[in-house]
């Protein structure tokens, strides 16, 4: 009993302190198994069209996809889904893979256009992925702060927490 209890207490305390709050998260399913790598010759901004001008980067709309894939470019069945959606008149609903808590404000324009950061700084090797990752990357404050500290850029609380 004694051992059981001490295990319980220790694990509980450690657990409360260490467990991520978003413990039970669902897997992400993209509508189309997009391959970033085969598109690597494109600029990120050609699909994430607002990345330089707005706070948000934007996920490509069906029209953006159709810009190239109006007619078949490959024989990939995933590509066919684009035209299928277009035929049905449905939008393509991408799931976001990088998230921040809803109370955090991040400006792509500030980081991409003014600070001239590369996308890889935060998004890692997303551009080289061949199939969509199934888990969401929840960006943490540590990730932001460590970069800011490394680059010696001041960050006040309400710059992000508005």
């Amino acid at each position, binding site marked *: *009993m*004694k*051992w*059981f*209890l*001490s*295990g*319980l*207490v*220790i*694990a*509980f*305390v*450690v*657990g*409360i302190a260490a*467990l991520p*709050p978003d*413990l*039970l998260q669902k897997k992400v399913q993209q509508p189309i198994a997009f391959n970033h790598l085969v598109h690597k010759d494109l600029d990120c901004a050609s699909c994430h069209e*607002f990345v330089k*001008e*707005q*706070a*948000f980067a*934007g996920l490509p709309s069906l029209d953006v996809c159709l810009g190239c894939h109006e007619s078949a470019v490959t024989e990939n069945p995933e590509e066919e889904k684009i035209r299928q959606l277009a035929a049905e008149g449905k939008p393509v609903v991408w799931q976001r893979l990088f998230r921040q*808590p*809803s*109370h955090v404000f991040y400006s792509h324009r500030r980081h991409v256009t003014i600070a001239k950061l590369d996308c890889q700084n935060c998004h890692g090797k997303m551009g080289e992925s061949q199939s969509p990752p199934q888990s969401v990357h929840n960006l943490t404050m540590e990730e932001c702060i460590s970069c800011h500290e490394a680059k010696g850029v001041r960050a006040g609380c309400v710059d992000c927490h508005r």
Partner: protein
Amino acid sequence: MKFSRRGFVKFSAGSAAGLGLAGVSLKTLSDLTAATTEENYPSKGPESFLNSICQLCPGGCGVTVRKVGDRVVRVQGNRNSPINRGGLCPIGVASLQYLYHPARLRSPLKREGSSWTKISWDSALGEIGSKLSSTVGRGEGSHVVMLSQELQGVLRQVASDFLGKLGSNNLIETSGPGDGTGVAVRLMQGVQSRPAYDLTNSNHILCIGCELLEGWSSPVWVMKGYSQFRGKRPRGRLTYAGSRQSVTATKADTAVQIRPGTEGLLALGIAYVLISERLYDFEFVQSHCQGFEDWRDENGRWHLGFRNMVLERYPLNLVSEVTEVPTERILKIAREFGGTRPALALAGPIDSVTANNILAALSVHALNALVGSIDRRGGVLLQYPDPLDTSEPAQSTPSFLGNFAQLLRLGKDPLEAVEQAFESGKPYLPSALITLDADPVSDSHDAKALSEKFQQVPLIVSVSSFLTATAQLAHYVLPSASFLESWVEQESPSGIPFLYHGLAQPATSAFAESRATGDILLGLTRSLGVPVSDEDYGALLKKKIAGLYERKSGAVAGTVFDQLWHQLMEQSGWWAPTYESPDQLVEQVAAKGGWWDSFYRYEDWSRTLRNPTGKFHFSVSGIESLVGGEAAGQLGSLPHFQPPAEGPASEKYHFLVRFFDPLVAVSHQPPLPFVREIAGGLVQNNAGIWVEINEADAEELGIHSGELVWVESIRNRLQVFARVSTGVLPGVVNIPRGVSGWSGDPWSVGSPVASATLAEHGADFMPKWGETRVRLLRS
């Protein structure tokens, strides 16, 4: 203590349980406290700005809309609009809550028994069209009645064309109580156009019953003007006399409280001082006025002049006694008013067409003549006719209103005339009723009686964004788009001393299946099966505005700098338009939010004094039937004083109730939550309606500020919040005229309360706004 294998197993099991427990606790805690509001976040999108024109009141403010994607996230003032120059009133700002109101109607509705069925536009218009056609077939087409808000140019044209196809002239625009000064200007100057007020150039504004800062005229234009009036050097001074401690009263340099219904007498008292101390404008009175001195007509009959009437009948001590204003205060006010030029006197609204009310308006406007503020800088001006609507304002008298239409020119609220026509049933009951973004039932002082009458109408079609009280009685409800979702035309709003014509494109796509009111009307016209052009409302507007190209003056609305530059050019005889073709003009007007011409020629007497004598008349004709009695013989229609016919104070109902219209009531729309939150001015209790009571009276009755009390008149009783104030006269209570709560409103609880239902009825079935008595009971 040994750590055995058994111990290790137990420890591990404990750890697992502890970890699980920790996870569950964290999850529970984060769920319980629900840190995230993520589900509330709407979609993102690129930011853009567009101009439109607010239509929630007749003020005509230009608005700039901030959009994120297709969502409208902010409505602010359009800096280019000469009316509001970037400012906006709270209702305009809150129009977003109108646009995205959860109770907006989504599709046309047809009533079947007591329930509603959704139907398509085609079948709705088809069914209405065939019913109207059969009405015409029965020869009752002329009995079709349309009730609407105040309409603008093309929309008015489309509406009357539609009625014309049916053979009816019953287009009735309900516009609320008339502006007293406006009525007096029409009567005393013999004109038809609307007056304009040169607020910014005035050095002294005297408000006698006029709530200058609470929705009078075009509200934001007034506030802008007031700001400049206060900011210039010498600073403009404001005097207020009225029976309520209103915003205008608190902002005035001198404010006096007078007995309700004695506004006209105070004006005459001031006239007494101006005349006896020779503070009036001799030159103006001599050369441009008639009826100041005693005079003989061509028949040799002698008439009393204004001067002698005032001097003989309204000595200060008498005025002081009845108005309850000390003599020295009247003296001070009069000397200041007479001693400052230019000065402007403004009368209160004509909420009922009574001798007291009309004479008060005349008496106040007489002060303007005395100080020579007629068509002069800083005085009462006259609006130029709209360049695109060159005919004189049509004095069409809807046949439905019969005899009741006569009083409309005296400022009678058209809705009251409608109620009277319904009540009398003469000359006829409508064969069909169409309401256009209007809610006469809610606005009525006796909603019950009016809705009973409405139920006798064989066909009611309601064009409305919401299922209002009126819409609930309709057989068909057609969802109309808000101004942010339609093409908008705006003529010069009342009171503004320059020409303005606004045009704006839709700021966002229409909500659900709703359509612009203009397009609905065009659709209804087409449904009658008569030949009609197939242009839509927007195209009609653009075609009309293109007509400005021929005018070769004025300019597209621009910044203050643009305005100054343009004026400088025009003064030097140049006119350099920014556009080269009519299409370009339309494009620019729509983008900037309007076209305007600030040119005004003062002292253009031939235009502004259009009595047969070419003069300003102290003695007016056309009100004899109102004045009547002993006075008619002696004083004729000189602006004199007739006390209000208030009922005697009884043991039971011993408070005189004053209805007033706060700024937030200028809109005839359903109460928006943001607007209701600020309605009380001071109270943020969302309560909508409150009653203001004098401190001493409240103490006697044991009533505390903020508590719910019953206000009971002979007609009705309402439960409203009490507000105790020193700014209320003893024996008087003030109640905002309006409605609290609304059945389709998710923010309000309880049933709607309309203070107008308290009003006692006169013999003519009309509310006695100024003469109702109530009692207060603690609840």
